[in-house]
């Protein structure tokens, strides 16, 4: 039996405009993107109506996690390396250039100076699991104050920003504020918040 073959249309589409569009978007995202910084600890920030954007550069970020652990972050690879070098001299921790350079590339840190060498020598895949008890800020061993002080010496333009979790007890934040008011004598700082939707 003769079949009547329906005429096959070539189903090929011209993909060129689609490619154009896709690459346009890729270019846009590539140029506007800023990679999300790696977060050591997740922080749910409180929201407020303040709408001053946080500057990208010259910021010391002090993160106070829900459990009160303190993490610090400073932008700029060179500044971070220089900061660690100063801290190493102060706390008599001998660090190689490779170690300080590596520190320049890492995310925010929350390890006491006594274990910073071990932290840096942990292989990259394991580093996330390295226990980070937070930067000590007790009166007997106030490393936080030294960190902030040296950060200001490394980069005098630096601003202090505090990023706290919604549920952090105020006690912990107060400790941070008191520390930075006491030693590097900073009375002006920023609190990082999310923008509140109205």
């Amino acid at each position, binding site marked *: 039996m003769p079949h009547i073959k329906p005429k096959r249309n070539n189903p090929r589409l011209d*993909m060129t405009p689609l490619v154009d569009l896709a690459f346009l978007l890729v270019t846009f*995202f590539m140029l506007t993107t800023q*990679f999300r910084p790696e977060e050591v600890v997740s922080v749910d*920030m409180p929201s*407020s109506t*303040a709408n001053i*954007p946080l500057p990208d550069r010259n910021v010391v970020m002090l993160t106070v996690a829900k459990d009160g652990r303190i993490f610090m972050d400073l932008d700029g690879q060179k500044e971070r390396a220089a900061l660690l070098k100063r801290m190493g001299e102060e706390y008599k921790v001998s660090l190689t250039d490779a170690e300080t350079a590596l520190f320049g590339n890492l995310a925010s840190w929350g390890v006491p100076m006594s274990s910073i060498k071990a932290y840096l020598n942990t292989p990259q895949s394991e580093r996330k699991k390295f226990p980070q008890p937070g930067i000590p800020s007790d009166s007997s061993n106030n490393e936080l104050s030294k960190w902030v002080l040296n950060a200001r010496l490394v980069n005098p333009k630096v601003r202090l920003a505090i990023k706290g979790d919604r549920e952090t007890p*105020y006690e912990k934040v107060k400790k941070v504020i008191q520390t930075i008011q006491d030693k590097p004598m900073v009375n002006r700082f920023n609190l990082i918040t999310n*923008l509140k939707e109205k």
Partner: protein
Amino acid sequence: MSEVQTGGGDKGKGGKPKAKKMSTHIDMTPMVDLAFLLLTFFMLTTTFSKPKTMEIAMPEKPKDNTDVPQVNEKKVLNLVLAENNRIFAYVGLKPTEDVVEELNYSENSLRKKLFERLRGDSGSMVLIKADDKASYANVVSLFDEMNITKQKRYALIDINDDEKKLLKEKTGTN
């Protein structure tokens, strides 16, 4: 765009068999795949919403030999932040039972009070005192209220013993 110029040199020789014309269509599908893969990657790794910040200037620590400026006590509104999002407000120096008032974070409690203070008195001042157990969000929202109600003078200071006692009474018995 993708046309290829063929021929050019063989105009005169008519009998020469023409080179078979190849299709100039290129299959774009893998390229689209790649482009969208990149697109997805950049879309997911990008951060659009920049964190916002509020600037806080803390009162300077008084030096030992300077006089602390005197303030009219009636102009000072004290806001004591306690745990579980409670606020106790009072005017004056000591939190006695008859002046303390409990507020909450809603619009017609705290904000109303703040606006009232601002309207009533030109030199009014707000002192924010957070208890250790108050959450950080409480402090931030208090600062936010100060910005919203455009308070001119406010400060975050330490809680004192009288207020601690007050909180013990209020939160312990309730």
